[in-house]
């Protein structure tokens, strides 16, 4: 009987792992795919009529893209949670602002105006492969914030992985910083800045959201996080731009929604993003955050493959070398067994 119970226990965890790996692979595929419609958007009206010299307008266009993106992701997540019967739970979580949803509000500031905005900047000013690879820095940022803020442990293994990821970053940014790609245009630095913003933003978002995500349903948590992002752009940033500048914010919103090609790319980008977030958190519950992130980070590989298929061009050599470093670093960083996660996450009593 005992051996049958042990067999059943083994089967239970094998089933978990199999599903967890499937979700994690879906994360990587959808996240990698996101860079194609995200970049294609820049080549559609109304974004393609913005002069490459008018950096102010291009930044405003990025803000408009990010806001519409957040609304579309919210709609897809509402459909998902509605079909799973979780909308009541969404309401219950959202109204507990002082103790729970304030963390999602803060996470949305890092995730939206920094990470997604930064990614659209990186896609628009440098390119999709750069945008994908540079974001792979986010686990380093997340681990450092978790260490400083809630005193989570960083093992020797994780530190080694972080060092490899940082080396990958040097390879990615090196040629740009030493002028090899600086000739492409004097505003490429805005793309590099966007890349850094996306890595810091996603790392910080994960560290902040995990505080609330631990005690709430992840599907519901993601929807809360996008609710706050919509409010942030819609009530603060975009009205401020309209009031203080002459930038055509309303024109860009209207034309994006009325242009079928732009709207299609926007919806494709949003559906990829909505379900890559959902699949990511589902994988965490089945195989642990460590393995989920390690496999999810393969999105960099999928992004390179998708971009090569669509453009029929291979990326620059230093992006590929950087990609290898960051992927190897992710696997080294997250190689701890899932069972060790609880121990890794143990915090001191006075933490936070």
């Amino acid at each position, binding site marked *: 009987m005992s051996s049958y*119970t042990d067999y*059943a226990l083994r089967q239970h965890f094998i089933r978990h792992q199999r599903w967890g790996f499937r979700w994690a692979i879906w994360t990587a595929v959808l996240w990698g795919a996101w860079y194609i419609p995200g970049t294609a958007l820049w080549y559609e009206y109304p974004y393609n009529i913005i002069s490459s010299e008018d950096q102010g307008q291009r930044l405003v266009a990025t803000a408009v893209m990010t806001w519409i993106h957040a609304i579309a992701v919210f709609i897809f997540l509402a459909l998902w949670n509605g079909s799973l019967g979780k909308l009541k739970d969404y309401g219950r979580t959202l109204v*507990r602002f002082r103790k729970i949803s304030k963390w999602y509000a803060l996470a949305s500031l890092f995730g939206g105006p920094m990470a997604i905005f930064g990614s659209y900047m990186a896609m628009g000013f440098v390119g999709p492969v750069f945008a994908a690879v540079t974001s792979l820095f986010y686990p380093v940022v997340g681990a450092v914030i978790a260490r400083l803020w809630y005193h989570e442990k960083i093992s020797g293994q994780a530190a080694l992985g972080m060092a490899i990821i940082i080396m990958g970053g040097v390879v990615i940014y090196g040629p740009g910083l030493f002028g090899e790609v600086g000739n492409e245009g004097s505003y490429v630095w805005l793309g590099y800045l966007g890349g850094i913003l996306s890595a810091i933003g996603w790392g910080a978002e994960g560290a902040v959201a995990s*505080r609330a995500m*631990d005690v709430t349903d992840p599907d519901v948590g993601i929807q809360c996080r996008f609710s706050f992002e919509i409010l942030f752009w819609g009530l603060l940033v975009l009205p401020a731009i309209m009031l203080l500048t002459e930038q055509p914010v309303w024109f860009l919103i209207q034309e994006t929604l009325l242009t079928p090609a732009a709207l299609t790319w926007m919806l494709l980008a949003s559906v990829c993003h909505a379900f890559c977030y959902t699949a990511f958190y589902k994988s965490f519950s089945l195989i642990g955050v460590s393995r989920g992130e390690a496999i999810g980070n393969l999105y960099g590989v999928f992004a390179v493959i998708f971009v090569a298929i669509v453009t029929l061009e291979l990326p620059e050599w230093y992006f590929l070398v950087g990609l290898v470093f960051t992927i190897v670093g992710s696997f080294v960083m997250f190689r701890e067994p*899932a069972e060790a996660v*609880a121990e890794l996450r143990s915090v001191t009593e006075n933490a936070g």
Partner: protein
Amino acid sequence: MLVLLEQQQIEWDDRLIDLAMQEYELEGRYWLNHFRIILDELASAGLITREDHRLDTVTDRLIFQYALSGFGRQRMRDTGLL
């Protein structure tokens, strides 16, 4: 679920799921699996720990006994659940 487990200290998943379904006035196989997944998620995140397991010979299903971890208690304090 965390609040229930904090009240019960240590409890088998079938009992915890019964209590949660009564609390939210839910029934059916979908919600049963929904709460099982929640317990798996909490265990995977390190908020609760699996203390024991046994095989239910009637349903041929594994049943786990859970307890709140120190980290889970800390997160409950952080988020006002405790």
